[in-house]
């Protein structure tokens, strides 16, 4: 595996990716900086992405894909949003800090 990792980037991509990236028609392209974040996003398996209902990527390995299937149908954890209350909140200690309290500090 380390040998593969040591190879240049172009040697690690598929033929399709490589040939597809060749600028055959010599079309002027905007200068882009190849950021690692773009590559990283493509490498993130879909089951780790925010939308769990998104189709799983077929580029996953079988073990990753089959592990990502929710076989037991366990309900997805809902993120509980804090309820917004319209009633006046109970004044905490800081909001009741008076001038007398301030003077007592000295």
């Amino acid at each position, binding site marked *: 595996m380390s040998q593969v990792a040591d190879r240049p980037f*172009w040697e690690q991509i598929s*033929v399709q990716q490589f040939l597809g990236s060749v600028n055959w028609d010599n079309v002027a392209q905007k200068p882009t900086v190849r950021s690692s974040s773009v590559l990283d996003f493509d490498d993130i398996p879909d089951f780790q992405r925010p939308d769990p209902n998104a189709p*799983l*990527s077929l580029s996953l390995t079988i073990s990753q894909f089959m592990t990502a*299937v929710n076989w037991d149908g366990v309900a997805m954890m809902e993120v509980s949003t804090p309820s917004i209350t319209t009633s006046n909140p109970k004044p905490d200690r800081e909001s009741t800090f008076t001038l007398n309290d301030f003077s007592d500090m000295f």
Partner: protein
Amino acid sequence: MISVADLLVQPRIPGHYYSSQSYVQGDLEMGLLENRRGDRLLAIPSPLIEAIYSGLLKETGQATGLVLFNCGRWWGKNFYTRFRDEVTDYYEKPLVDMSMAEFLHCLKDCWATYGWGMMEFDQTHHQRGFIILRTTHSAFANSAPSDYEATACSLEAGVLSAFFSQLVGRDLHTVQTTCESLGGSCNTFIVGTRKRLEAIEPMLEKRESHDAIMTALCA
């Protein structure tokens, strides 16, 4: 997927292993059929499948589907072993490390070359714990008796059940919801855990629609 480095270095670039043109070999004059590794293949004529159905119906009646399913389970275990060995040897990587795209390509080709029909893979309900498989041109559905009132691909359901159980490493079950023999456009199979699929057995007996069954399963 073939990498550029492999293209330059590897002496052999693997193609479609289960391509029917290269997978099925043998000597027609001798009546021998072999796969590309030299393993013997057995061709089953349609009259034999028809005879299996009629014989089972006379001997076991309504249990015909169950008998065929259990036969399929046994067959599926051997099918998985053969599939895994062939694919691993040919592509030189463990089956579970193959990408899903490569795996599905192999499985669909294999299914077609073995004469079991065309297969589609649907992962729409993966988050609910189910995988849907659809097949067409099934020899078993085509050879079922006209008065066979249940879904006719129990043997294939058993094969898929054993295959995915071993692939996933869990005890998975497969049920069939539509069948070409009952006028359906395809044969639809749901792969999931046994406990969850057994809950909809009454719906299967009433032959409720695939959509209704999926709605109940995903409720």
